[in-house]
């Protein structure tokens, strides 16, 4: 599949934003951080900015971005619509939490209710993002049970790395966040490894013979293409570049997204001076950002659509 930059930015930025929101909301609900208005402002501000940049970026993928509001209507059948509706709905508990944290409560219990409701809203939104891809049986590498869980765990992992940076900058106790982030990163690394094994071993069940119904006469080999230049279907679905470098890119993304941030998280557990903690957390965040961008690019570029069998024969 063609790895559109708008969609890569959408899934990674909104994933990290919802992940950071999850950490902040959980910390607020469990009283793990002081109720410092500046922490609330910059923390939730960063989370909202990432989420919003991601959602706006997703509209750049549209042919008619001015009609994007229509995408909220078909939540009964469409995961994309559900994702949009859940994303909009999540702004409500974020706003309740954010206003209570930064300016004080307008209503009693606003802080706690906003914090508690933000957690399921953010989880549901990221799950819906993953299901947009996991619900497509036409794309073998996406139609896998691990796809949506990986989206959620990577949101928690990248959000956790940002949470560590935030707490380090503010000089607050961060060992609980570093521990949680390490767990999310390790879990993410395991799930992603299992996912890569799953897509490498999943049977290619759809063939040119079945797609054309001509298998009864023998193998089906393309003789003349239907058009001289690639059309939309081939440009969108026939992306080939990644597969040659897939193994190397997997190692790069695993090192940047999992290995280095895990090592950074372990260092944060030590009693280091705050300036060094900030540097470690910042480098971990940079590494995780580069890693998750590589991982997401590969998620699109490695995936093969069944329609390619009409164009090149064989199986998909």
């Amino acid at each position: 599949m063609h790895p559109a930059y708008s969609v890569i930015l959408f899934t990674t930025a909104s994933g990290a934003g919802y992940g950071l929101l999850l950490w902040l909301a959980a910390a607020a609900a469990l009283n793990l951080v002081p109720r410092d208005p500046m922490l609330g402002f910059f923390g939730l501000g960063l989370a909202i900015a990432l989420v919003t940049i991601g959602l706006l970026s997703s509209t750049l993928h549209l042919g008619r971005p001015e009609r994007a509001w229509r995408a909220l209507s078909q939540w009964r059948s469409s995961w994309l619509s559900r994702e949009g509706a859940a994303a909009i709905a999540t702004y409500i508990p974020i706003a309740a939490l954010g206003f209570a944290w930064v300016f004080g409560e307008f209503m009693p219990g606003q802080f706690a209710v906003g914090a508690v409701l933000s957690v399921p809203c953010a989880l549901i939104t990221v799950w819906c993002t993953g299901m947009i891809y996991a619900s497509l049986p036409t794309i073998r590498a996406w139609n896998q049970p691990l796809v949506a869980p990986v989206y959620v765990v990577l949101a928690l992992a990248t959000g956790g790395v940002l949470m560590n940076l935030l707490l380090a900058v503010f000089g607050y106790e961060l060992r609980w966040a570093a521990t949680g982030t390490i767990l999310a990163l390790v879990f993410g690394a395991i799930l992603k490894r299992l996912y890569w094994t799953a897509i490498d071993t999943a049977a290619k069940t759809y063939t040119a013979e079945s797609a054309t119904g001509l298998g009864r006469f023998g193998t089906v080999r393309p003789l003349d293409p239907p058009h001289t230049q690639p059309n939309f279907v081939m440009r969108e679905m026939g992306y080939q570049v990644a597969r040659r470098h897939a193994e190397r890119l997997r190692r790069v993304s695993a090192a940047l997204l999992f290995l280095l941030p895990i090592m950074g998280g372990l260092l944060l557990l030590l009693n280091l001076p705050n300036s060094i903690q900030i540097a470690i957390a910042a480098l971990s965040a940079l590494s995780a950002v580069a890693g998750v961008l590589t991982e997401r690019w590969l998620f699109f570029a490695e995936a093969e659509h069944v329609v390619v069998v009409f164009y090149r024969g064989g199986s998909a």
Partner: protein
Amino acid sequence: MTSLPETTAKKLGLVIDLDTCVGCQACATSCKEWNAGGYSAPLTDQDAHGSDPHGTWLNRVHSYEVGDGAESRTVHFPRSCLHCETPACVTVCPTGASYKRASDGIVLVNPDTCIGCKLCSWACPYGAREYDYDDGVMKKCTLCVDRIYNESFAPEDRVPACVRACPTGARHFGDLGDPDSAVSQLVSERGGFDLLPEMEFKPVNKYLPPRPRRDQTAQPAPRAVEQPATNSGSLADRFFAWADKTLAR
């Protein structure tokens, strides 16, 4: 609404005969011509006179080489929307622009509400939907919805443009939900089949398989010998025989 109708009153669709299709592209070009001005207008092309010309077409004709040795054959294979009974392209649509009509089963895109997210093209295994890069919305076969009900047309023209254009009669249009319709009869006589039936989108369009090859090892039929013109011996016959011989020199 992108939820699917429980049933459709009719199942209008195409039956494509892979035995008689000669791959002439008449269906594809007539489709492009009609739909560039009809429901799907504009049906744009990009870089039409440059080095990378491409455009939105609703019907594409592949040619395949099938089988090996004496049993191998060339099969021309038109590919367009199959107007599935349970199409995923409709249910994934976030806006309700994609829909399946309860009256006749035609799958359409409303060009006024499509946001061009392309998710329907990802959901379709048949590559039937193409994004119109200039119009910013998805385009697909409409089964020439603006021809088949058009009462200002002569009855023989109230068929999809591709069916009207096919010079070998390889394309048939009708109600595949009616077991007594001509197209349903054709499908049962010729063993019409679905593409990718295991994906369970239940395509309405059917394809007819190429007929079995004639036995190539049998003796060829003796060549017909030209019969000499009858010559009854009459003056006229003798004149014509003389004229034939003279002119043949």
